[in-house]
């Protein structure tokens, strides 16, 4: 696989949201607006890239039977680092995303990539894989966020183009499921062609 396709595969062929269907909780919970989706995607990407790099480095010396606990410790460490950095430098974002920052630990995308890719590939490839999948995740979250923000509050990235309210249900829980469902239909339809 060429280096370039390592990065682009996450956008379409192995898109973590629409194809692999991983990491659903933050996908649904944090996409109330385009900006929130983008920020959550970037936060996840940060942890994904670093944990991919470290796990690809230590994989050869980690005994098979304890590899899951070791990976979880590594991932949890980076999540805590991210928490501390966000509290220090972007406290507002940290407040908005709330619980879903610590929950990156149990985002199946990250442990999934560690198991499926990072532990049998080199450092560079693993880093690129992290960037690719991370970008795919960020892109999906942003798209869902844009759709929900347009329908729910009549705005894009906070820029309002209608006065008054949108269809509130799309900002609330049901809208998350509906938008993701219909976007998946669209994705399936386009991917078939």
């Amino acid at each position, binding site marked *: 696989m060429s280096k370039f396709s390592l990065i682009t595969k996450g956008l379409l062929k192995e898109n973590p949201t629409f194809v692999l269907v991983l990491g659903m909780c933050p996908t649904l919970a944090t996409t*109330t607006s385009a900006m929130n989706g983008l920020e959550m995607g970037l936060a996840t990407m940060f942890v994904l890239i670093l944990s991919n790099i470290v796990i690809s480095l*230590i*994989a*050869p*010396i*980690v*005994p*098979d*039977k*304890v*590899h899951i*606990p*070791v990976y979880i*410790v*590594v991932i*949890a*460490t980076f999540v*805590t*680092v991210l928490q*501390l*950095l966000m*509290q*220090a*430098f972007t*406290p507002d974002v940290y*407040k908005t995303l709330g619980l879903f920052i610590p929950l990156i630990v149990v985002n199946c995308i990250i442990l999934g990539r560690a198991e499926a890719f990072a*532990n*049998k590939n080199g450092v560079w490839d693993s880093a690129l894989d992290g960037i690719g999948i991370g970008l795919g995740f960020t892109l999906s979250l942003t798209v869902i966020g844009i759709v929900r923000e347009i329908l*729910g*509050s009549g705005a894009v990235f906070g820029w309002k183009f209608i006065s008054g*309210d*949108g269809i*509130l249900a799309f*900002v*609330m829980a049901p809208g998350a499921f509906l938008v993701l469902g219909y976007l998946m239909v669209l994705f399936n339809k386009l991917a078939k062609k």
Partner: protein
Amino acid sequence: MAAKSNLTNMALVLTAVCLVCAAILGVIYVVTAEPIAAAAAAEAQASIAKVLPEGGEISEELSSDAEGVDGYFVQTDGEGAVTAYAVKSTTGGFGGPVTLMVGVLPDGTVYNTSVLSHSETPGLGAKCTEENSHFREQWKGFAGKLAVTKDGGDIDAITASTITSRAYTKAVAQAVALVKTLEE
């Protein structure tokens, strides 16, 4: 590929990984401790300044047993006379606790209010965070009856969000009640 497992290398690797991770976290914690404290302090300062008249000195946070009050700050002028209070007040809203910072003048008039945290419904109750909305503007200099109009008071509730408006009003009332007891 992964190494073969035996007791020694399992124990060794687990211990080593935990040690290294703990060390990294320790360093990051120490490095970020100051910016985190500064960010929190700046946020608190900004929220206090927003609800009080300009100028004057603001005290450290004082604690109180009054119902729903998490703490309060006293603003004094150069000679030590109290010019206003900023009270952190919490009540239960529609989706969870609503915490406000309420600026109150010594005579019990509300100077201004701001929302510190809430979990109200986006697009409905969450409108209480919108600055310059009618709901928020009516609090500036408010000295009327602290209840929404539906309950016979002088506060116009947010459309379709009476519960949030009631909670907001109650939180302000708690702050005003505290100031009144302090002034006695």
